[in-house]
């Protein structure tokens, strides 16, 4: 049986892992290579790295770190952050990424999704979307959740999948950092319209939040979180045992 995936997300800035609460107040956690090795050993099903560096030096540092991670960790690696062109895809794939996550770059140039899917296959293109409720609808926010793009999230996600996005990471800005559970209402709205894997992000505060996620929304394929894993509030192996005890298929 296919299993639900548990994915720790590592935001990397200047070669270090950070995590923002509501995208602000970043604090230093640990070395990406050490954390990746720790998570792989602890039962993470996949790892996501977001490069939140803006400078060229930071970019180079990031690919260097990615290469080190991919030389030692043999589970799927997704990379995002600063992916604006096909050459950005090429840059991170060459360093050992398996999937590439696009967000603002695809909002600016939606054809990037299509071009990348044709070149590397749908399975390689992950559409990551930061979504917030505005005027009773779900609105796409760009630039790390700072700008209201005016785009309707459901329409944008449908369009992304039609152009070849092979997976969706749905990050709810409304629940991100609040640790009060995933945004089930928003996730349901997305699961209803797409048939590619959906990864839930934003809001996980405890093990129960994951159980609730997979019980209430069987169409969600994976749960992604950062701080609760980084600070050891939830241990992945404990979480997977808990899910298994609740009848949810996981890789133990």
């Amino acid at each position: 049986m296919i299993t639900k995936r548990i994915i720790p997300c590592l935001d990397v800035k200047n070669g270090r892992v950070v995590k923002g609460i509501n995208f602000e107040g970043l604090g230093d956690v640990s070395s990406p290579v050490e954390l990746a090795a720790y998570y792989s050993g602890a039962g993470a099903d996949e790892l996501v790295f977001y490069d939140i560096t803006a400078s060229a030096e930071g970019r180079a540092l990031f690919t260097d770190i990615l290469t080190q991670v991919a030389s030692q960790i043999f589970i799927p690696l997704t990379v995002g952050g600063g992916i604006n062109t096909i050459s950005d895809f090429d840059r991170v794939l060459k360093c050992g990424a398996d999937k590439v996550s696009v967000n603002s770059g695809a909002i600016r140039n939606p054809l990037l999704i299509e071009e990348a899917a044709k070149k590397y296959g749908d399975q390689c293109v992950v559409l990551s979307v930061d979504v917030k409720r505005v005027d009773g609808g779900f609105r796409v926010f760009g630039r790390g959740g700072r700008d209201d793009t005016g785009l309707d999230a459901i329409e944008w996600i449908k369009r992304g999948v039609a152009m070849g996005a092979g997976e969706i990471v749905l990050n709810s800005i409304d629940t991100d950092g609040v640790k009060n559970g995933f945004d089930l209402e928003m996730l349901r709205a997305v699961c209803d319209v797409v048939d590619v894997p959906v990864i839930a992000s934003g809001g996980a505060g405890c093990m129960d939040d994951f159980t609730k996620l997979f019980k209430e929304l069987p169409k969600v394929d994976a749960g992604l979180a950062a701080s609760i894993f980084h600070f050891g509030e939830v241990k992945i192996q404990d979480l997977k045992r808990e899910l298994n005890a609740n009848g949810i298929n996981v890789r133990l």
Partner: protein
Amino acid sequence: MVAIIDYGVGNLFSLRSSLSFIGVDAVVTGDPDVIAASDKIILPGVGAFEDAANKLRQSGLDKVIYEEVEKGKKLLGICLGMQMLFEESHEYGVHKGLGLIKGKVLPLADVVGDLKVPHIGWNSLSLKKESKLYKYVNQGDFVYFVHSFYGAECSESISAIAEYGVEVTASVERDNVYGTQFHPEKSGEVGLSILRAFCEM
């Protein structure tokens, strides 16, 4: 020395790194002489069947594969590399494969019902026969899959399956030819142990 065949398809970074991680001397090459001089051959592949099969033929590397397999050299096809071992694929038209394993490649979407395609994620192996490839693997161990097509009409060569609505071909073997639909180089410790077992044969 293990030759990883480079015919311009897919990303070979992880495969090369994983072999190096387990201490295996491996080279990524498109040179027929290097492949002929190797102890074992790995045929990787990601992407579309037709494109990959064309590239393999245009490079002339299909001939080297036939010659070396004929001599008894061990060959491991991974993912699309496994699918290429079959006689033909029905991925957007009908395309000829290497024909080293009896059977064909068909779309998963036609058989898995409401389940999502591609079949992405960790699935457990149900081992169907004794295989040297699974020397270190236990019944039910998890490996990582990403694919939209599967090996069909190949029951005599199936060594393991994974449940995904139907019994999906997870691996095949015939004499010295092996193939895995999943990615051992992305399947953590279990995957590394499968690569180790292949390299130790």
